[in-house]
């Protein structure tokens, strides 16, 4: 929690500024709507965190999200019966993609930047090769309930997010989380202490794949089938994680901070939109803020360490 403090302060500040511009923003309904909207990115950031803290990257999540949505639509084709099996299949697909990423990275020793970039290309190509270029079929209402519906006043996606967050925090507190961070901090030392470095990294990629599957289920549910659904999500997720103070290169930062980073990014989008910095200048402001945040975060590190990280 202590490590997440700076980003939580920033997040609180942003939410306060939004509330100034739009007083009803802090009403429960509006706040829930905000959380619902942020949920997929927060979940992706949580998954990406596992990979980054172990010292790797996962660039394939965006195209994995698209692939998952398109697969679901084609398999379900608007009929409800197969909803649960298909949900299970999506989860398996996410895990499988993560497994391949992990094995290629750890056993074939391909840098993860490249292995997951290759996976990005392969997934986006293969999925449309299979569907003949554009998404086919449709997602039935039952499938979409998770992303669209709500339990009483609370959207399902918020509940899913809470479950994912709880799961991620538990995993990081459990032995797995500690060995993962150990592998990211000093893989040599970790290996000599009995950490199965290749295995925990592979599991981290699988967690990331799983998070992409969950995000895809929510995004597909929220807005239906689309070929663009996952576009650019990998960079957003990495940005969110880094914004949360998690160091690229591994071994530093908490999953709570990573998720707070994702909320912050989403709040930033909302704020920019609210103040009319829509479209055009939004990326520029975003770019400056990300660089500034990481630069400021780096200032509190000792010189040597930060230099090594660059």
């Amino acid at each position, binding site marked *: 929690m202590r490590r997440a403090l700076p980003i939580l302060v920033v997040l609180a500040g942003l939410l306060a500024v939004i509330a100034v511009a739009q007083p009803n923003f802090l009403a429960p309904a509006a706040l829930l709507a905000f959380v619902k909207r942020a949920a997929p990115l927060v979940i992706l950031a949580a998954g990406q965190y596992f990979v980054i803290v172990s010292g790797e990257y996962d660039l394939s999540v965006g195209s994995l999200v698209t692939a998952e949505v398109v697969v679901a639509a084609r398999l379900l084709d608007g009929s409800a019966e197969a909803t649960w099996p298909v949900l299970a299949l999506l989860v398996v697909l996410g895990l499988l993609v993560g497994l391949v990423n992990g094995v290629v990275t750890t056993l074939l*020793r391909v840098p993860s930047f490249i292995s997951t970039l290759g996976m990005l290309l392969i997934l986006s190509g293969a999925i449309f090769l299979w569907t003949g270029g554009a998404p086919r079929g449709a997602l039935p209402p039952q499938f979409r309930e998770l992303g669209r519906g709500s339990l009483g006043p609370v959207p399902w996606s918020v509940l899913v997010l809470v479950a994912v967050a709880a799961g991620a925090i538990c995993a990081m507190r459990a032995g797995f989380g500690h060995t993962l961070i150990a592998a990211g901090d000093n893989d040599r030392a970790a290996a000599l202490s009995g950490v199965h470095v290749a295995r925990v990294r592979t599991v981290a990629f699988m967690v990331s794949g799983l998070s992409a599957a969950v995000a895809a289920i929510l995004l597909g549910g929220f807005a239906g089938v689309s070929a663009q659904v996952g576009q650019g999500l990998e960079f957003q997720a990495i940005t969110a994680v880094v914004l949360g103070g998690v160091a690229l290169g591994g071994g530093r930062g908490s999953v709570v901070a990573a998720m707070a980073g994702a909320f912050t990014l989403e709040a930033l989008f909302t704020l920019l939109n609210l103040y009319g910095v829509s479209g055009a200048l939004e990326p*520029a402001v975003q770019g400056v803020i*990300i660089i500034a945040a990481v630069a400021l975060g780096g200032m509190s590190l000792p010189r040597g360490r930060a230099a090594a990280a*660059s």
Partner: protein
Amino acid sequence: MTQQLDLRRLPAVGSFLRRLSADRPARAVYVALALLIVVGWLLFALDGGRFLSQENIVGIQQRSAALGIVAVGQTLVILAGSLDLSVAYLISLTTLVAAETMGGADAGVPVAVAAVLAVSATAGLVNGLIVTRLRVHAFIATLGVALVIRGVLDDRYDGPAGSVPESFQHLGYDRVGPLPVSALLWAAVAASAWFLLSRTRLGCRIYAVGGDAEVARLSGVRGERVVVAAHVLCSLCAGIAGLLLASRLGAGAPTVGTDGGYDLESIAAVVIGGTALAGGRGGVAGTVGGVLLLAVLDSIFNQLEVDSFAKDVVRGVVLVAALAIHARRRTA
């Protein structure tokens, strides 16, 4: 006596080639390229085309020139242990700067070239300073700069703008025999970079800083300056690619860089060419091979009219396979 020593130690034959590929990893990519050309030749023959026809050879060169120039720049930053994700947006920006400054007039060309080089050098300087002075990881630093450039583009342009005079379009369309001017430009950029890396102090220091920043420091190399210089040179290459594209397109286009995927594709070409993503190992020869490999692959795809989605799958597999092979060769 020195001459004798050299002769004794290195067979005279092949010494030039050996020096050209001071980066030995480049050999693998040329073997792959040769194999691919044979495969291409066979596939073309089966499909009723001629792989080694002048048109096809020109096509391969035309298609690879812009990517090739960017990839040469990317090689420099990667060798120095950094990375540049901002090249795609920078290319878009420079096509616009070029076309708008020229405004269709011949007189504008020198000014435009100067303006493009100034803009791109500035972008590189900013990248380099953020990476070295603010100590922001290159991935985030250049991604951030990319977003800033994108904001400028989105804010100022909503479509192709400016125009390039006829005279400047010679750059993009003319050719000397089977050699397009654009490919000659690429060759010149690659040769300069090769020259820089092998024959200048900066080149030696780029390898040193990327290979082991601490060793470089102990030898009196100022690592930060080297990284900044590499970023400036990389951005200049992006600027040159922007000029080339402007001459090809006849105008500036705000999406030409991102549509071309020059950021990730240039990195892919560099690493396929055997340059280590971590820096310090590899070189321009490998990158040229990597770009040609991708271009020949494209040419085969074109002949066979392969679905663009299948192309992506093949490219992804080639990328990962190439890196896995390089990793194996390293440890073997």
